[in-house]
């Protein structure tokens, strides 16, 4: 079996702002060729490095975003390199780029190949008053409305874990690319996919714009209390747990009563989820008092048996030892022969039964120059 996008040829000129798009397309089976300047992609100098040794072949940051791509070196900012890039683009289906608006258009790739899909990922998009403005992942998270609602009431807004502006932009660029390829089946022509980091973040919000449109409400930070007021972090004997007052409420109260607690929650009015939402503070205080007698594992196991969506609050590394993910084979061991190392890469974000996700080693600098440029 081959991947869903087998046979699709992608040239990836993106820096870290757009690297996730090519990673997703490579996972789907496209032939993604990372085009690096002769000195190497800027991602190769971003830590962490394998064993802390700074080296272009040892950046875990580069590895994560470029697993499954082939790699060539080509200085397309100089005339000779630009000519080679044009020749490659003439045979490609997709180009992904993160240059300031207008820069790539000057190369005239579209005129050479009218079927080409060009995906551009920039801080604010190709149009509009801020199109030339700059952003980091954090600045894009801020301007897209993600940060304001993350954090404690009395603390500052907090950025997400992971580069979520870049990741959302990468996902939407991949969505746009496959959409454009589908449209090309009908029109015979490629098109431009214009992705703004800011808009990608704004498109990955939940309540923030909706409640403003609906009732002019400005959502605020409220710590771990979810905006719906059905979830909040609480403390067990040995760690943090995510409480949930959705699910089988009756069973939850029965369980507490069996422990001789929760009398104040034995109230038929609370069977209505709207009441539980309104009285969230009182509910979570009672749940905290009760949860303190359990370990996180005991509480989550008991809740899941009753179909109450509780979960442990864990560090990301807990995933590496998660028996569920192990049985599903989420992490895929990939050899890095030069380093004598096997690396467990996070694998498929979703599984197409008839078109498996592809995980492979990231390219060494210029590794595929001969086969691609030769």
């Amino acid at each position, binding site marked *: 079996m081959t991947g*869903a*996008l087998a046979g699709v040829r992608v040239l990836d000129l993106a820096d870290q702002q757009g690297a996730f798009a090519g990673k997703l397309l490579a996972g789907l089976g496209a032939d993604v060729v990372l085009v690096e300047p002769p000195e190497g992609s800027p991602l190769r*100098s971003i*830590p*962490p490095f394998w064993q802390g040794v700074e080296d272009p072949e040892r950046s*875990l940051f580069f590895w994560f975003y470029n697993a499954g791509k082939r790699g060539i070196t080509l200085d397309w900012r100089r005339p000779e390199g630009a000519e080679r890039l044009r020749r490659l683009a003439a045979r490609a289906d997709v180009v992904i780029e993160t240059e300031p608006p207008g820069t790539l258009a000057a190369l005239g790739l579209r005129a050479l190949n009218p079927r080409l899909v060009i995906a551009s990922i920039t801080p604010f998009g190709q*149009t509009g008053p801020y199109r030339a403005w*700059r952003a980091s992942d*954090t600045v894009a998270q*801020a*301007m*897209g*409305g*993600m*940060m304001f609602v993350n954090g404690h009431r009395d603390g500052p807004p*907090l950025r*997400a874990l992971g580069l979520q502006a*870049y990741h*959302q932009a990468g996902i939407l660029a991949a*969505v746009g690319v496959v*959409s*454009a390829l*589908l*449209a090309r*089946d*009908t029109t015979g022509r490629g*098109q*431009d*996919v214009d992705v703004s980091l*800011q*808009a990608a973040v*704004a498109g990955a*919000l*939940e309540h*923030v*714009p909706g409640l*403003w*449109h*609906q*009732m002019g409400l400005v*959502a*605020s930070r409220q*710590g771990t209390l979810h*905006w719906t007021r059905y979830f909040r*972090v609480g403390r067990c004997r040995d760690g943090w747990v995510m409480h949930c007052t959705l699910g089988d409420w009756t069973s939850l109260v029965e369980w507490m009563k069996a422990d001789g607690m929760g009398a104040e929650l034995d109230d038929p009015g609370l069977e209505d989820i709207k009441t539980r939402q309104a009285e969230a503070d009182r509910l979570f205080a009672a749940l905290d008092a009760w949860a303190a007698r359990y370990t996180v594992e005991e509480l989550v196991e008991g809740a899941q048996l009753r*179909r109450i*969506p509780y*979960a442990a*609050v*864990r*560090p*990301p590394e807990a995933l590496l030892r998660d028996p*569920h*993910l192990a049985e*599903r084979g989420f992490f895929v061991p990939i050899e890095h022969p030069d380093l004598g*190392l096997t690396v*467990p890469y996070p694998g498929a*974000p*979703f599984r197409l*039964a008839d078109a498996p996700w592809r995980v492979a080693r990231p390219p060494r600098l210029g590794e595929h120059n001969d086969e691609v440029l030769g």
Partner: protein
Amino acid sequence: MRPLDGIRVLDFTWVVAGPVTTRILADLGADVIKVERRGSLDFGDRRGGLSGTLMRGKRSVLLDLNDPRGLDIARRLAAVSDVVIDNFSARVMTNLGLDYDALVQLRLDIICVRMTGFGLTGPDRDHVSYGPTLQALTGYTLLMAEPDGPPAGFGYSYSDLAGGNLGALAVLAAIWHRRRTGRGQLVDLAQLETVASVLGPVLLDRALHGGASVPAGNASQEAPGAPHGVYPCAGEERWLAITVFTDAEWERFAGAVGGAAWTRDARFATRAGRVRHAAELDRHVAEWTRGRQAEEAMALLQRAGVAAGLVANAEDLCARDPQLAARGHFVEVPTPEGRTVRIDGPPFVLSETPAAVSGPGPLLGEHADEVLSGLLGMGAEEIAALRAAGVLG
């Protein structure tokens, strides 16, 4: 034209993650038919706002799937659909007889997307989850916090958006695959895995180097740099995000803030020095921002070529941001009742076959008659009888 013209999606999804997937498909031109039931979570006005943003451009049919006649209608609709999608826990569609093995009997090239919390296999496959619990399991809740601080995490279900947008990619890839091979397939999307897939390099770091992840506040995750974070500005709850990585960016920053004495401090002259003394640097930057309007400081720094951005609240985002407005990110949509509602539009632009909002959110069961007559050829009497029997809403 739009890229998914002619594609029909039978949509059993609810809450947020699944509707995010199918709203993108609707924006791309697919005919999305929501199969709804009574008693789902209620976010208020179904036309606009939060619900309308989730359900924009979809049609709605209210069916009692516990009644064999309701289930029969669902099966007949599946037989004339390209994609069937749900986000229940794993056993629900199997118990209803609407899983892939059943659907493929109805249509050989069906694309069946199961957006569960934990996937269709594995020991936790029957566990129940929502976005916040998946974020807790994958590290976001614990690590989005100030250094040494208690967990804060996302104030909302980001996991639903990550899973929803990746779900749209999965459907598009499966449609492309079917065009090339003629084959449909089962898509197993575990939201635990979609949200784990966007964690980034941290998993490689922990796998290879061990150690324990600790919260790092607003420190940079893409390269060492300082100043990096959010700084309080004049007024209540006004903050500016600023990012400086390179020495060239630092010089531009120093120029923009007027070459204050602290910007000439030798400890801040190099990137390594700025990162080492980030806490002290942050205090100076905050002193500078505190007396300024966030919008003015942002414009001043951006004009100098420094990445700076307002920490936008809902009003900044929806009512004041000139960039999103210029790009038409939020749209006004007329409703059949003669109202106009505001909702979010598609967050990406296709130059030739643009995605676009097809309409407002549907009322519950609004399109039952046109769907049953138009797609299944049912007559008015038959539809009325089903409605009288409570099978159809």
